[in-house]
């Protein structure tokens, strides 16, 4: 059984699903995807990118020099999309189980995943 992905990893992979992004774009997209809850540090981002690249979940799509500095664009691989899909299924199953138990306890209705949704 695959080890569950950590939240920053899930967020990075999710951010790359729609389009390849460079480092700064990834930080902004992770923040947007998490509705502002997660602001990755640059050191954390690159530690995660190194690991994801070595595991073949993410790869460098292109390199260009912008304002004298190298800028790499990263994209999710098919293996990365597969790993994300497995994690999403796992999270959905967990959410269903938790929701069912909470409903049985009578303390919760339909849980909302909307950002800022107060219950």
């Amino acid at each position, binding site marked *: 059984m695959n080890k569950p992905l950590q939240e920053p990893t899930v967020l990075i992979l999710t951010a790359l699903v729609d389009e390849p992004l*460079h*480092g*700064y774009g990834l*930080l*902004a997209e992770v923040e947007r995807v998490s509705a502002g809850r997660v602001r990755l*540090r*640059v*050191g*954390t*981002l*690159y*530690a995660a990118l190194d690991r994801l*690249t*070595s595991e*073949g979940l993410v*790869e*460098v799509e*292109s*390199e260009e*020099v*912008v*304002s*004298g*500095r*190298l*800028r*790499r664009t990263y994209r999710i*691989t098919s293996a990365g999309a597969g790993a994300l899909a497995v994690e999403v299924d796992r999270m959905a199953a967990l959410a269903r189980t938790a929701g069912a138990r909470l409903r049985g306890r009578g303390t919760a209705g339909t849980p909302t995943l909307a950002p800022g949704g107060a219950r």
Partner: protein
Amino acid sequence: MTAERRYRLLLRAYPRSYRSQRAEEMLDVLLATEDRRGTWSGVSEAVALVRHGIALRLHRPAAGLSIPASTALAGVALLLMLAVLGAQQLTASGLRGLGLDGYPEAWGTHDLWADPRWPVQALWMVTGLALLLGRHRTAVAAAWAAAALHSWHLVVVSATTVDLPWPGNVGDSHWVATGGAAQAGWVLLTVAGAAMLGGPASAARARSTLPARRWWRVPAAGLVGLALTSVAAASAYSLLGIGQVRLVEGVRGPVLPLVLAAAALTTVLLRAAHGRSALVTLGLLGTVPIAARWSDPLGVIGGGVALVVAGYALGSRARRPEPSTPGAP
């Protein structure tokens, strides 16, 4: 202290080899992030950078050689070509053993079918197959095993006063491969392939830069060449007779499979990042077996080592980003 100087200072926590590849990219992101957020991220960012840098220093061998991307890519390409060569040589041996090579039966060549270098040829093929399947640890292990075995084979065939053991000898009668410049040239390419591939991580990085689904064309082209060569050689013996042995032996050789595989490889590399630098390195290394036919072994080895060093230098140069200029990212 300016933001750029502050971040450059923090990035010194990273190993030099990592900084040479990533520092400018990370600096770009750090400055852009600070610009967007309006303030520097403070202690937490500094801690994240230093922690990652120290982790890399602790987990990377300090004296480890950093393989330039184009050099590792040239190593992958070279080992694929050697796999095609190995397939050609093993097939030729197999056909000979089965009596399907077109030689007259009276020659009894099937009694002498086993090329003593078959363990090296098999390891070349294992390396190529492992690279294609993404088994990078296996590929690196097989490449180094081939390099060690091929080097030992050169010692065995060069030894004139002692009889050294060699695992490739089959049966009572076997080919006696001779030492010399030609053998040394191929040994050099085997060792160079393993050295340029680096470890499993650099092999994986190099392979990931190749366009997926396209590089299977390389062994496919080699196999087509192999099939054509095998059929053509046997047919040529039937048509031309034994008077044209040299011509037919030329047809049977590895030239056609290697040329077709090289053509496929070139089209793949032209689409890959660092592919052009890898092609230059590969082209330089390709001169080794040619030069070997007119040179002494030491000259070939010396020249080959110089070419590998040149390959590393070329790869490093291609990888280095342009000098940074002050200004907004």
